[in-house]
């Protein structure tokens, strides 16, 4: 369970997701600098290509995991009342989970425009 990742595993996962996100940023920056898409259709073709879509999906997961571990660290440091901590952590979890789900749905819709998921 994602919420139970602690100690060394959380520390390691935060660093691995940071490296992955950094690589994604560099690749995206190079793409936009060297051969920026000229139209929406061209942009959609690139984004919906299987390797890019897979990388984007992993990127969304990495963002949420990285944010979850980082925000949880801040909450552990500053929010000491148990009930308040549970409440704040639950809200963060719902927002991050919802955000990831929403991004996945956007990606799926881009790949399959006829879908009625949204």
């Amino acid at each position, binding site marked *: 369970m994602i919420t139970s990742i*602690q*100690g060394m595993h*959380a520390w390691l996962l935060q660093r691995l997701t940071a490296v992955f996100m950094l690589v994604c940023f560099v690749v995206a920056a190079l793409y936009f600098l060297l051969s920026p898409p000229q139209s929406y259709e061209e942009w959609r073709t690139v984004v919906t290509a299987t390797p890019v879509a897979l990388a984007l999906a992993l990127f969304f997961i990495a963002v949420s995991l990285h944010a979850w571990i980082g925000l949880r660290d801040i909450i552990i440091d500053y929010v000491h009342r148990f009930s308040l901590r549970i409440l704040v952590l639950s809200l963060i979890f719902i927002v991050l989970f919802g955000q990831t789900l929403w991004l996945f749905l956007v990606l799926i819709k881009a790949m399959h425009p006829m879908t009625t998921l949204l």
Partner: protein
Amino acid sequence: MQVNIYRYNPETDSAPRTQSYQLDSVVEGAMLLDVLKQIKALDETLSFRHSCGEGVCGSDAVNVNGHNVLCCITAVSDLKQPIEIRPLPGMPVIRDLVVDMSQFYHHYRAVDPYLIVHDPVPEDEFLQTPEQREKLDGLYECIMCGACTTSCPSFWWNPERFRGPAALLQAYRFVADSRDQGTATRLKALEGPYRLFRCHTIMNCVDACPKGLNPTHAIGELKKKMLKDSI
């Protein structure tokens, strides 16, 4: 010279206060401890700890102008005036500049700061190569003054559960020791979100250490060792 000192006696005062002292003259080359002794001669109710006076015992650590220092090796001429002296942050005050360091020592004891050896102990002595001995440099010199731990925000927020830089430096001092055989136990005891991993590499500890040690590096080495041993 004006010196503003935190004054608080929990047994009689309802709240802490700052008391200002004016000194007409201070001997040339005076350390802050000399100034405190001079003030003590004027006002014997002022309490502070001190012992060796040479930066070895670590008993006179206080917060001066927002920075944790040892009074006995801090030259007054290097300090911005008026000099603000407060007790070490994040510790319960016993009286004035004297703090209760029980929590600090609890964390120190919790990392088992001694050699753990399972094999039969050699009859005469343990042998180490110069390279093995060199790994202890920068670790064994800690004088346990508490300047690092009490400057660490992670310790301020979780003083009961985060071991703090001084104790973690000691934990690594024994993990790095070629004679010690307790590494697995030591690392297991540091797992979880609090004891080791509350450190966010803020590095206040490095800035505060009067002996120039680097607890952040030791903490990083503990994390690396933990990772290596888990793969």
